[in-house]
């Protein structure tokens, strides 16, 4: 097989994931785009491992490690997103500008609550 096919597919997949990370607003959707980018890297690792016929199978071992790290990452990432959602009532990245724990001004929280209520009413 021509090496260009998997390499180009991996590059395009990475760029699709890049677009998703930059353009999405929901935190869970951003995590999904990160998964796409990680998978593009995995495809590259496997293709080059098969091409080079590495005696230690370094590419495939690293792919397994990447899959494990990605699983750990999505578990922790979702836990953090859920925590933010529980605190602020939203998973929108654009509306989580401050990292302060509970020291936000009351007006800000009330404003967000009002906006949420407004959205629910529209729906």
């Amino acid at each position, binding site marked *: 097989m021509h090496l260009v096919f998997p390499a180009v597919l991996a590059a*395009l997949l990475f760029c699709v994931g*890049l677009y998703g990370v930059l353009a999405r607003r929901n935190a869970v959707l951003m995590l999904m785009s990160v998964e796409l980018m990680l998978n593009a890297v995995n495809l590259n690792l496997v293709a080059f491992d*098969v091409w080079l016929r590495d005696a230690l199978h370094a590419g495939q071992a690293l792919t397994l490690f990447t899959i494990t790290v990605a699983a750990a990452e999505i578990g922790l990432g979702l836990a953090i997103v859920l925590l933010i959602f529980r605190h602020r009532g939203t998973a929108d990245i654009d509306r989580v500008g401050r990292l302060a724990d509970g020291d936000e001004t009351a007006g800000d929280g009330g404003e967000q609550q009002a906006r949420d209520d407004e959205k629910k009413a529209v729906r």
Partner: protein
Amino acid sequence: MNLAVTALDSTHGFLSPSGVEIVFVLVGLGVLGAALLTVTTKQLVHAALWLVVALGGLAVEYLLLTAEFIAWVQVLIYVGAVVVLVLFGLMLTRAPIGASPDADSGNRPLAFGVALAAAATLVTLVVDAFRSTWIDLGTVAGSTKANGVTLFRYWVLPFEALSVLLLAALVGAIVLSRRNANARDEKER
């Protein structure tokens, strides 16, 4: 005519793609389409389901590259576990079932430009670098036996370190998502 004959004579060529290459390109187009739908669809749950299609297609690509073990690990962990986690995340953050108009943020054109520039650069570079490189798929490269032998003979230490990492991530996720941790903190305050 002459061109066709020379293309048929050579074992490698763009004009005479092998069956594996044709299947690889077709599945690759499917993967790319599913990935594009994942990052552009307005329905959040549909995005997770298109992610299943993209990741499953990638498992087929691994099979075509004769990396069997990686392919099944991909199916087990990504399609089985990660997507279920993502769906749980979507539902626990009360994702709307229908179309949500605010799924994309305001910097969408900028993101499109950055992704397009990155894609053009990377594809140009990769095609230029590997124009005349072929993978020999004659023998299976990633059988379970070969992977297991190398993993537990040469990669034992990273493997064990990864198990510690997974344990740490597990403990961290549990600590972060425990509900009464917040209440106790507030009581102490």
